[in-house]
């Protein structure tokens, strides 16, 4: 096993292990912290796939941004003694069924796929290609997403606004 392959297996183990911990733990704060390491593992997977820009974006947005907001929300909303997450069998059953079905679908697709093995390529920069693709071919979806985000932002402001503040107090 090559050096890169052994690191790959370590990262895969970290990603799957912390991901499983997120699902099975009852401590919601620990679950949120474990999710950080799952996101880091996914970022490392992007590095193995030579997608450097995507890896950095994953690290910046999921690792540093979303999980911080998540932790902030968790800490603001639950008591410090630790809220236990309830594992309801009635809810667990459909979840297991859906996850199992999804796994079978992915597995059969992966088995049937014709894997075209090529020699590992040298890492090349991807940010330039991504930038010009967004600004030329995919300009309309890009603009649509930005409009959507604006709508979400205004909606969040409207929801968060205290009622009875229309008089400009």
């Amino acid at each position, binding site marked *: 096993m090559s*050096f890169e392959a052994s690191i790959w297996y370590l990262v895969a183990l970290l990603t799957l292990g912390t991901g499983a911990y997120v699902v099975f733990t009852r401590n919601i*704060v620990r679950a949120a912290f474990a999710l950080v390491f799952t996101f880091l593992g996914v970022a490392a997977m992007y590095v193995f796939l030579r997608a*450097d820009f995507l890896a950095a974006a994953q690290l910046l947005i999921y*690792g*540093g*941004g979303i999980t911080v907001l998540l*932790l902030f929300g968790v*800490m603001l909303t639950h008591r410090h003694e630790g809220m236990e997450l309830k594992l309801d069998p009635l809810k667990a059953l459909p979840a297991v069924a859906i996850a199992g079905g999804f796994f079978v679908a992915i597995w059969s697709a992966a088995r049937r796929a014709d894997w075209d093995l090529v020699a590992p390529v040298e890492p090349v920069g991807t940010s330039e290609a991504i930038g010009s693709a967004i600004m030329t071919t995919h300009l309309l979806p890009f603009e649509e997403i930005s409009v959507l985000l604006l709508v979400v932002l205004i909606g969040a402001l409207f929801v968060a606004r205290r009622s009875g503040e229309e008089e400009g107090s």
Partner: protein
Amino acid sequence: MSELAQNLTLPGALLAGLSPGVAAMLVMFASCAAVLGVVALNGMFLVWWERKISAHIQSRVGPMTTGYWHGWLQSIADGVKLLLKENIIPLMADRWLFMLAPLVVFMSAFMAFVPIPWGEKLIVADLNVGVLYIAAITSLSAIGVIMAGWASNNKWSLYGGMRAAAQIVSYEIPVGLALVPALLASSTLSMQGIVEVQAGGIWNWNIFAGGPFTIVAFGALFLASLAEVNRAPFDLPEAESELVCGFHTEYSGMCFAFFFLAEYSEMFVVAVVASVLYLGGWHDPLGLGILPGPVVLMAKVLLLVFVQMWFRWTFPRLRVDQLMYLAWKVLTPLGFINVFGAAFWLILV
């Protein structure tokens, strides 16, 4: 990594007989050891320097006896003391997260040193997305700070962690916006590429590339990055007068030392980012190229670090609402103005 190995002849000769896998592993460990050495030495020097600067600002002399010459051995003595001290874990703390938190904070500071260009050929890894990588990795320290605050099971620590979360999420936006004008001027994200664009003297540096807009952007970057590394006047997560010591109240011994070392490393890293993006990196002001790159870069970085320390011992701490006001109503709009202004300036002028 491979750049460093190719540039230093000695490892090349040593590694010739080994299989590529083992050689890659050795080079990786050697690079990590080199970075760790720089982080540790830099931390010890900056701690001593800050004590001297703070002392002189307050009309004192600071450490004088350890090591005979202006107390230069003081940091090493403190380091040994912290190594030998007992590592206390509170009874009701979350043990795993409590131990993990200093490591997360330290790792994020440590990993940010990887794409720093020290000279023309001296860089551990010239990542194609270097600037983005540093911004991403340094933002991970917030996770460690929140982790420490929560795991300590202490109200002051928790408050510190919460403040850190709010502060870092807010200040990531002005920092990101203040990076953009320099990236527009150099049209690359690679740290080494940004330095190469600014060759040939002070007038080619990015700080003057976009007229007034890049100068203002440099100032905004400096201010916002102070807030991102929790330095005074933005050190609310560890405000001594309100929160005892904030998120690291319960830490002692080596775990505390990790937080301390990480803080000084982060100060250094944000100063490096500002110097590389706006002040020409390892290029000297006259474009002569006589002095070696690391010396020039260190001079610029230490100047910025000195200003950081000067700020800390001069300005009073901001309140939480003032901090948020500065981030969202001053620095963020200013950042947008700088981005558009610099873009127009670069195209039209």
